[in-house]
C-alpha cells in the first residue's frame, strides 16, 4: 500500500483464463490469495494473462468470488471482520450440491487456496460426522465392491467399532 497523500489506485489487474476459455479480470491482491497464482506472479513477473487449464470457468468464478470477499474484508485489520468472514463462509457453503462441492474443492486445492480448502473439507466432514454408515453411503452414493459376505465379515471383525 502506498502511503502517499494522493492515493492512486495502482492495483494491477490480472487475466485468468479457465479451461473452457472463460476469462476473468481480477485485481492482483485478490488473485494472490491463491498460493498457486501468487507463485506464478512472483516467478513470471510481468505476465498478465494466466492460463489455468485444470479449472472450469464456473468453478474458477466461484473461487474468485470467495477470494474477493475475503480480500475486501481483510483490508481493515479488525477482529470484527473475522465474524463477517465466518458468516459469509457459512452462507457460501450452505447450499452447495455435491457436484459443485467436489469441483470447487478440486479447484481450490489445485490453486492452493488453503483457507478455502479448509472451509470446503470441513463442509464435507460435517456431512460425515454423527451419521450412520448407511446414511453416509446414501449421501455420497458410495457403492460397495466387496464380495458377497465380505462386508459382514469385516463388520464382525470390527464389532468393537459398531456396537
Amino acid at each position, binding site marked *: 500500500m502506498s502511503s502517499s497523500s494522493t492515493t492512486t489506485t495502482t492495483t494491477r489487474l490480472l487475466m485468468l483464463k479457465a479451461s473452457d476459455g472463460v476469462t476473468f479480470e481480477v485485481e492482483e491482491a485478490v488473485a494472490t490469495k491463491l498460493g498457486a497464482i501468487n507463485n506464478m506472479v512472483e516467478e513470471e513477473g510481468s505476465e498478465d494473462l494466466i492460463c489455468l487449464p485444470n479449472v472450469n470457468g464456473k468453478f474458477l468464478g466461484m473461487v474468485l468470488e470467495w477470494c474477493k470477499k475475503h480480500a475486501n474484508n481483510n483490508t481493515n485489520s479488525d477482529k470484527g471482520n473475522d465474524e463477517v468472514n465466518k458468516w459469509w463462509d457459512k452462507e457460501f457453503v450452505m447450499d452447495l450440491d455435491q457436484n459443485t462441492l467436489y469441483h470447487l474443492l478440486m479447484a481450490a486445492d489445485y490453486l492452493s487456496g488453503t483457507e478455502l480448502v479448509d472451509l470446503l473439507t470441513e463442509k464435507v466432514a460435517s456431512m460425515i460426522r454423527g451419521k450412520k454408515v448407511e446414511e453416509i453411503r446414501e449421501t455420497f452414493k458410495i457403492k460397495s465392491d466387496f464380495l458377497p459376505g465380505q462386508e459382514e465379515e469385516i463388520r464382525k471383525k*470390527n464389532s468393537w467399532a459398531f456396537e
Partner: protein
Amino acid sequence: MATKRVKTKKDGVPNTTPVDRISTLPDPLIHHILSYVPTIYVVRMSILSRYWRRVWYSVPALHFCSTDHPDRFHFRFHREREEELYEFVIECLKHRERSMRYIADSAITRFKLRIDCYVDNPAIDNLSIFSIWRSVEELDLRMRPKFFENYYCLPEAVLNARSLTVLKLNYVSFDGSHSISLPSLTSLSLMYVKMNDEAVLHNLLLGCPALEKFVFKYYYGLYNPKISSSSLKLLEIENNYETLEVETINLESFEFHSECKDIINLSACKAITSLSLFDSMLDDESLEDLVYGFPLLESLTLYHCFDVKNIKICGQHLKSISLEKYYDPGQEYPEFTIEKPNLVSFHFKGDIQCGISMKELDNILNVHIIIEGPFEGYERDWYINLITFLSKINFSGNTTVSLHVYSEE
C-alpha cells in the same frame, strides 16, 4: 451430485445420475476431510468399500473424544463407559499397528484424545507399548479429571517422542520423575498443568531445544517461575504468581494475562517486537519502564490495564498500538499520551472519558475507534465530550478514521 434436488443447470447439463465423487478425491484431500472427523466414523466407514477400508488403515490423524458418540462414549462418572473408550482407542491402535506392515506410509502422525471428567486414571500408560510415539508429530491430550488430585502424569514414551513437533497438554501433572527429551518440538501449549516446583519447568524447557512457541496458562504449583530458552520466539502466559522472570533472548512476541502487581523481569528480552498486556495491575511508572525496555517494539496492545492513570507511550519503531479501556468505578479516567510514533495503525476501544493525545505525529494511516455509547440518551454533553475526545487525538492529514459507537439504543 447426490442431492435430492435434480436440477437442470444453467449450462444445460442435466443432473441425473448420482455419482460417487468423494471416493475419487486425491488422498491428501481425503485425509484433510477426515482430520475433522472423529476416528470412530472413519473405522465404521471401512465397510463402505475396499477404498474406504484402505482409507481407515492409512489415515494419518486419529482423534478420540468422549463426546464423539453420545450413545457410546458419553460418560460422566460412568466407569464402564470410560473403560470402553480406552478399549476403543487401544483396539484402533492395535489394528493400525498390524496393518503398518502391509501398507506403506501409514504411520500415525497426529493423535488427539479428549476425555471429559474421568474418574480413574486415563489408560494412556497402556498406550506406551505402541509404536505411535516414534511417528507422532502432533499430539493433543485433553483429559479432564473429575477430581483434582487425579491429574495425570505422562508416560516416558510421550516425553521422549523424538518426532513430536506440536504438543498440547491439558490437565497433566509434571512431577519431575522422568527425563524429557523432545528435540523436534517447536510448539508447546500447557493448560491447567500441575508442576512440582520451578526446577521441573526449567528441565522441561531444557528438553525442548527447538521450541519456538510456548503457551502456558493456569498452572499450579509454581510461584516464581523462570522461563529461559534461547530458541523461543513467541510466549503467551496467563496466570497470577508472585514474580516472573523471562530470559529468552530471541523472543519476538510476548502476551501476558495477569492481574499481578509484581515484578516481571523481562530485561533479557531485547528482541521483542510485539507486546500485549491484559488486565495488568502495573502502575504508570512500571508500565512505562517496561515499554521503554524494548527498543525494537513495533506493536503494543494494552487491554484493560487497571492502574493506568497518566501514561506516556514512546517508541521509535512502534507501528501499531491497540488500547482497550473502560471506566472502572472509583477510579479516575486515564490519560494516554503517545509521542513521536511512526504509527501505521491505531485502535481504541473503550469510553470517551479516557483522554488520548498524540504528539508529533508523522504518518498515522489507520485509526479505528470503537466507543461505548452513553447510558442515558445522546445528550449534548456526550457530543461535546466526543468532540473533545477526538480533537485531542490530533490526526494528521492523511489518516483514515473509522468510528463505531455501541449503545443500547
